[in-house]
């Protein structure tokens, strides 16, 4: 089992990034790792670009991922998937929700949303897994589970077994939401047949 790793969660304030990172962290804790997570509250949350750092290992000191060392990025929005490029390395995996939320300058006609932005990642040989998490969540019947679909997709790149994630969903979520979120996790996980090459490294 991999000894340590860094997962970056990125997106736009209000997209459910904190819940996704919490679930992942609790799964890593249940798997026996030390886990630290860092996030920013306050003004930054008002619809702005949001990032959470999650680090796991035998003993984690710094709560911040170093540039060039994020093994996985879970991006909830396409532009945000690319904004934190300096944190990635050539073997990073990026699980990205194919949603576009227009930044203010674009929404007000002062700039344009770049086309094919994910190509910027692929051109650098970064492994990109594009997921339409909303479509999956809609099929399940609960649009608000899109973030758990993303966690499911991302889980393919971790050594933690899916059973642990499902346990965490049961422990952490209110009764009425457990079943649908378990479904969302499983659906997200099935979307990706990852090589797990990331766990074999290091």
């Amino acid at each position, binding site marked *: 089992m991999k000894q340590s790793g860094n997962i970056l969660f990125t997106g736009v304030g209000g997209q459910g990034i904190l819940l996704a990172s919490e679930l992942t962290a609790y799964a890593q804790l249940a798997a026996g790792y030390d886990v630290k997570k860092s996030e920013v509250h306050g003004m930054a949350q008002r619809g702005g670009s949001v990032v959470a750092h999650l680090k796991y290992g035998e003993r984690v*000191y710094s*709560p911040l991922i170093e540039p060039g060392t994020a093994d996985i990025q879970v991006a909830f929005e396409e532009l945000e998937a690319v904004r934190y490029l*300096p944190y990635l390395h050539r073997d990073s995996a990026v699980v990205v929700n194919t949603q576009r939320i227009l930044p203010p300058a674009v929404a007000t006609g002062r700039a344009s949303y770049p086309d094919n932005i994910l190509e910027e990642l692929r051109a650098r040989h970064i492994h990109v897994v594009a997921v339409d998490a909303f479509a999956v969540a809609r099929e399940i019947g609960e649009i608000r589970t899109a973030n758990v679909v993303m966690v499911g997709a991302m889980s393919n790149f971790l050594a933690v077994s899916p059973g642990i994630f499902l346990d965490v969903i049961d422990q952490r979520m209110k009764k009425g939401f457990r079943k649908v979120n378990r479904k969302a996790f499983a659906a997200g996980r099935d979307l990706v047949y990852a090589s797990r090459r990331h766990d074999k490294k290091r």
Partner: protein
Amino acid sequence: MKVSVTKTDRLWLSGNEAIALGAWEAGVQVASGYPGTPSTEILENLCSYEGVYTEWAPNEKVALEVALGASFAGVRALATMKHVGLNVASDPLFTASYTGVRGGLVVITADDPEMHSSQNEQDNRNYAFAAKLPMFEPSDPAEAREMLARAFEVSERYDTPVLFRITTRIAHVKGVVATGKRIGLAEASMEKVPGKFVMLPGPARTRRAAIEQRMTDLRELAETLGENRIEPGATARAFITAGTSYNYVKEAFPEAAVLKLGMVWPLPGEKIRDFAAGVDELIVVEELDPFLETHIKAMGVPCRGKDLIPSRGELNSFIVRQAIEPDKVGELFDPIELPMRPPNMCAGCPHRGLFYCLSRMKDVFVSGDIGCYTLAALPPLSAMDACVCMGASIGMAHGMAKALGEKGKGRIVAVIGDSTFIHSGITGLINSVYNDSYSLVIILDNRITAMTGHQHNPASGANIKGEPAQAVNLEKLCRAIGVKRVTVVNPHDIEATGKVLKKEIARGKTSVVISRAPCVLLPSEVKRKKPVYRTVTENCTGCMACIRIGCPAISWHPLTPEEAVERGYRSKQKGFSMITEVLCNGCGQCAALCKFDAITAVEDEG
């Protein structure tokens, strides 16, 4: 909230949650604070514990005075605030250093290096030096909890308030935290000790001498304190560090010897000298000011520090490694230039209507204040021309009015939120009336302290636990101060608001407009049935009137002449606007601005 990790005695908590836990365990009985990122969640969590009184104070000065009073009554007390809040509380702080305590007193200052959610990144370790107080600084949530217990012990043993500094990367970092039992509580009692509590010049001179003795004693304690520990390692290059910087040193140079300081003031001179004597190169790694470095150099100990390590912004292990061994840093992907995504006022935010009106008054100087509404300074509204600190808007507007005289008449507005007005705007308003100003003061009353995540305040009608409480009547308060004209407007009604503003701003006296509508994120507002607005795209002429309010639910879709014709528009039309219905909160501000019936209300189907 309190969730077990693997064993029942270990939790996974944020630094602020860990501090609340630590405060409860340490037997804190009274805690007061003012919300401010990154400190807010300490009291928000502590208020859910049994057997501790908690409150939101109107400002940090009051919060510290409340905690000091509780300490005078013999119980352990806590005051919490963000770094700039300590500026407000610095008046009682400097003299509480003289009085000392009865029950333990700890003041938490949550600093914000990098200014994630602040107007400056001052380093509050300087307060420990200036106020002659001990200061602790933990490195992570687990340490925050443990160290808080030590801080209370030191407070009582050395008869001193204790400063406890955290930063964003402690407050909002989650980590594994051990738990313990609550200690036995002190019995509150009244005791008159004028020589200690009444700081007339005479007793103050006596206490001044006591402070010198206390700091000498604390320097001695620093030598043996477990929180100031040497971690053995390679001595070719060794480090002195504290706070979150310690984590970065451990990751960047895991093999090196480290002197980790948990108490960052006063410093253990002997320990530092001994450590320095046993190493070849000594580097001090700290965020922001060269605080440790300056005082270590003043001891005559040679070291490096800010000649290598940046003194602006946050550090991380990469920055520390790069600063010290630039050759050993691998190559990184360069960032790609992308449209920025700054924070924005929410869809349906009442502030937007008010600031839209101000944005149409190009000749007016808007003296602003601290809150969500400060975001109105950003385009497309660009409707704020100054923002300095809590409450400053009113005084600055008055000062400009006095400087500009006739030239400024009808051109100066102060804008301040309800909680900020209570915090420190009231005295400014008294000054404006007393000294016969002519600026218009707009109070943005959204019924809550919104920016920090919906904390109640003295004007909101509820206390920290959400229980009913007396609410300040802002209209009556302003009238009692002597404001002759107090007008209440609904900022969602842009037309009416604009008219009132024009009229009031032209008046040659200080008048107040209260812009009143609840924050759209308040649970009562979220539940309220509202219409949803929809774009009738065929009616859109591309005039961009709705775009200019900068609502995140409205977006502009550019068109080429061919595309325009294809959609049935005139070829000259540059694009059309569109409401994202799932994001719309139904305020209707945009509909009032559309002259072409391209925005209509539909019944909420949800």
